[in-house]
């Protein structure tokens, strides 16, 4: 009888510890829509300011960044293009159209007016974008980006 009681107590303590750990985890990690929207807007801001150290934390290591011309870059190549000035954003005016939360992943749809220089060529365009963020290390990180030039854009 005593053994049975001891075993029951151990099981209850284990269950309690497990649920406590789950609750603590939930409190620490809160991947919500507001945070995903904010991370998206902060990323635009960091790009305009060429803030590469902020980009290091906002971009996932497995980033696939695909531009409106179809060219894709990884995280290193994208950040390096800003460091070297190959890509220079002068202004980005973004609008988020929708945000969808899928557990630890968020899909953001939006459009933006972009003024930039790429390889010395002026870019002045309206783009549509899909941004996929993943919740890692307690923050949203951009893991996939795809944009397209919207048809009525006054592309130069």
């Amino acid at each position, binding site marked *: 009888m005593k053994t049975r009681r001891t075993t029951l107590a151990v099981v209850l303590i284990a269950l309690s510890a497990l649920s406590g750990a789950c609750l603590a985890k939930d409190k620490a990690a809160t991947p919500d829509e507001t945070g995903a929207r904010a991370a998206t807007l902060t990323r635009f801001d960091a790009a305009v300011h060429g803030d590469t150290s902020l980009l290091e934390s906002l971009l996932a290591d497995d980033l696939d960044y695909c531009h409106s011309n*179809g060219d894709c870059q990884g995280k290193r190549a994208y950040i390096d293009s800003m460091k070297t000035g190959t890509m220079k954003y002068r202004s980005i005016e973004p609008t988020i159209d929708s945000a969808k939360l899928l557990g630890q992943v968020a899909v953001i749809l939006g459009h933006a007016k972009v003024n930039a220089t790429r390889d010395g060529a002026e870019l002045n365009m309206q783009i549509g974008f899909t941004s996929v963020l993943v919740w890692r290390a307690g923050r949203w990180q951009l893991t996939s980006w*795809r944009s397209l030039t919207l048809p009525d854009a006054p592309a130069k």
Partner: protein
Amino acid sequence: MRRLLPVLFVLLATAAMGASRGDEAAARATVLARFDAALRADTGALERLLADDLDYCNFRGECESKRQYIDELKTGVLRYAAIAPTVEKVKLFADTAAVTGKVTATATRAGVQRTIHAAYLAVLVWRDSRWQLTSWSTTLLELNETK
């Protein structure tokens, strides 16, 4: 009680791991099956392959819902003549997958035939024990239009 412990452990482990999840091969297969269903206007298959919260954004940046996309195929407003897709990369995030690739498709929409070559990003979500397309967007690489 001692005999119940292994059972309890299994239950806890199962709960911690969650329900069975889709893998990369199944995500690829779902993307290709979706192209195939669109080509054959198989709306029954599309009902299962498309998530109810689908955002289907075409190469012009116009987005449609699941109902709108399926209705276009049902009514013949959109009719595919050929689709040649490739899957280049699959990234798995537990119950979500981001799939990228390229596609060349010939389709008639509202009487205008177009052949497009585009790069795409498909986001799949694992629901009801299958992958479902929840977000689709394309970047146009080349366009040929015949009116």
